[in-house]
């Protein structure tokens, strides 16, 4: 009797397996997938660089660049918490894999322009 139930369930139940490559990957609104950087808001205060547990972020204040190594980032979201300027956010999609030749760091040029009245930013 129990077996019949199990067998019948198979016919009316959706398959458990996700058809991943055809279907989009599953995630939720709160999933920490990868880090997104908004170059127009970054004041290069370097807080994200200092507080990153795996030191995946490098902010160069002189060259005005913001660099992330996706192969070091642990997606903890600590940088998002410490960023006071809303320049960082977490997106749902995971970072893509890379072949040996494609592996590298992602580099952004900071386009933030200081407002008219210059004031001191955080950091040293």
């Amino acid at each position, binding site marked *: 009797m129990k077996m019949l139930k199990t067998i019948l369930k198979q016919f009316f139940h959706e398959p458990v397996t996700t058809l991943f490559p055809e279907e989009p990957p599953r995630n939720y609104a709160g999933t920490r997938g990868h880090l997104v950087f908004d170059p127009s808001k970054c004041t290069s205060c370097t807080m994200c660089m*200092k507080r990153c547990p795996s030191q995946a972020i*490098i902010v160069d204040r002189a060259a005005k660049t913001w660099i992330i*190594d996706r192969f070091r980032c642990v997606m903890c979201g600590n940088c998002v918490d410490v960023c006071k300027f809303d320049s960082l956010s977490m997106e749902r999609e995971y970072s893509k894999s890379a072949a040996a030749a494609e592996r590298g760091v992602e580099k952004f040029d900071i386009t933030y322009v200081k407002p008219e009245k210059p004031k001191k930013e955080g950091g040293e």
Partner: protein
Amino acid sequence: MNMEINMINVPDVPNIGAKMKSGGYRLVVITCTPVSEGYVVTYSFDKDYKLQHYRISVQDGVKIPSIGPSYGGAFVYENEIHDLYGFTFEGMTLDFKGTFIKTSIPYPFKKKEQTAPTVTVVNKEAKE
């Protein structure tokens, strides 16, 4: 959380082990901590979820008697402290002779001359 720590002398360690065992205590952990002068080794016992700590103060090269005769499970902590801090325990129930945890540098937690850096150093090679 009981943080009261009883200081004892190094030769008393096996006696304390025997006393604790007869008192129905359970060995929770043995911790080694570097302090300003040498190291301290803390033995923590538990009875009815109350911790009882005994602490010995040791210098480099001191041989510490094992509490293995009372607590058979102590050998994992003692071997670990041997491999990470370089202390020798006498009379361990199972002596790995320094092969319990193999590390790339010998005794990695042994006190270094200078204090740890206080600023996070970012790897230079990634900067290019």
